């Protein structure tokens, strides 16, 4: 048996990390010698081999708590040195700025976070768009040629069919400044980046921990990822 590899789920006091931790643990059952810890210790985040950065609630609260908990530097250290997976607001925090509460982000992926503006628009079946977007929507992992780009398939999509459904709950979405950082797109009145990636960073707007088998597959791919 090789040395144990640790995965830190960063707990900066923003709500319930139980479902994220359970899903990562479930995914880890398929991997040899992976230990999952939920931690509020900066040192444990520094020592971990991989880091999951969840986030729920409002972005201003998340950024304030990340700062207050003393975990901001540890997360930045992780982003510079090892595989890091952001989820929901944990994705939004990776960008430069969110218009939610006019909040600066961590600046790890160039771009900003904006609110859905769908008033008066109708879905294909005639129903109104609702904000937050809440429910299952499709994620297309490649940009379509019509968008002028053909991105490569990211290793975190391994074994996951293009256009698979994932579970979303959000009112804001990321607008990466560079098309190359978009790893997945979803249509909800607007085509938005539902997954972003750069080097050793990957992040999803949807909740893999609530997305059944496809979500567990994504966590498993993260645990096996060697960027």
């Amino acid at each position, binding site marked *: 048996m090789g040395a144990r590899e640790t995965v830190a789920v960063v707990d900066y006091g923003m709500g*319930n990390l*139980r*479902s994220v931790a*359970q*899903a990562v643990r*479930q995914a880890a059952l398929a991997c040899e010698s992976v230990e999952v810890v939920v931690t509020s210790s900066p040192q444990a985040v520094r020592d971990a081999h991989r880091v999951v950065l969840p986030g729920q*609630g409002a972005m201003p609260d998340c950024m304030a708590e990340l700062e207050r908990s003393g975990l901001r530097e540890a997360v930045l250290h992780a982003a510079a040195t090892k595989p890091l997976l952001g989820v929901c607001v944990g994705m939004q925090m990776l960008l430069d700025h969110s218009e939610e509460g006019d909040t600066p982000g961590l600046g790890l992926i160039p771009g900003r976070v904006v609110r859905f503006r769908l008033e008066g628009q109708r*879905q*294909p*079946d005639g*129903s*109104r768009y*609702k904000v*937050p*977007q*809440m*429910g*299952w*929507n499709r994620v297309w992992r490649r940009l379509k040629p019509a968008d002028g780009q053909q991105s490569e398939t990211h290793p975190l999509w391994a074994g996951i069919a293009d256009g698979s*459904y994932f*579970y979303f*709950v959000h009112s804001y979405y990321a607008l990466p400044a560079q098309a190359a950082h978009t790893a997945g797109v979803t*249509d*909800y009145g607007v085509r938005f980046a539902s997954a972003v990636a750069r080097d050793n960073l990957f992040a999803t707007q949807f909740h893999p*921990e*609530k*997305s*059944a*088998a496809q*979500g*567990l597959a994504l966590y498993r791919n993260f645990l096996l990822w060697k960027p």
Partner: protein
Amino acid sequence: MLAKRIIPCLDVTGGRVVKGVNFAGLRDAGDPVEIAARYNEQGADELTFLDITATSDGRDLILPIIEAVASQVFIPLTVGGGVRTVEDVRRLLNAGADKVSFNSAAIANPQVVHDAAAKYGSQCIVVAIDAKRRSAEEERRPGPDGQPLGPGWDVYSHGGRKNVGLDAVAWARRVAELGAGEILLTSMDRDGTQAGFDLALTRAVSDAVEVPVIASGGVGTLDHLVEGIRDGGADAVLAASIFHYGAYTIAQAKRRLAEAGIPVRL
């Protein structure tokens, strides 16, 4: 666009899943964790657990069940039944619920819907409405404008035992304004009858509110699910009996919706 959702409902008491007809005559349907895992495998989009235990002592039994299900099933879980306070919401969310549903407590104290949504976000606060078509006598009851109410549906509390004298459509609008992120709408006339949703009720509430509406009560065939979405305007359809007793699988239900041109997660 978003997929329309199929939500199996598990009525839980004494640690078991049960099912009745018209809110009475319960029979055993099995172990909650096993049933939840089966529905997850079949492709259910969410699961709803209703704790129908009568006593507050018994109510705490739902927490370990939610914990057990949440450790094995990775889709959203809604829990309702006997939820009274913001503290109840906290405990259920901590046990692994993603959404918590108020019913009688919201009628007795509508402020709790506002307070819970302010603290945890509208996306995790559901209000369940048990509605029953008004009798001829009830139609003559004066409404807010002093005129007879006329045809419509009244809201019932306490597991469908007490007419609280509220119009169901007006109540739905009110709880959405208070911060409910979703409405679970059950037709008491249809519940357990397998005669299909009350489509007029479903349509009236769906048209009245901006938040998603889950239609419930009366599913007996897969075409009833199609009708609830297509004709009732529901965002999600909830059913129990047709799935618990093996008449249909979730996958069969999904295929029927897809054949009808409704977007579903297959």
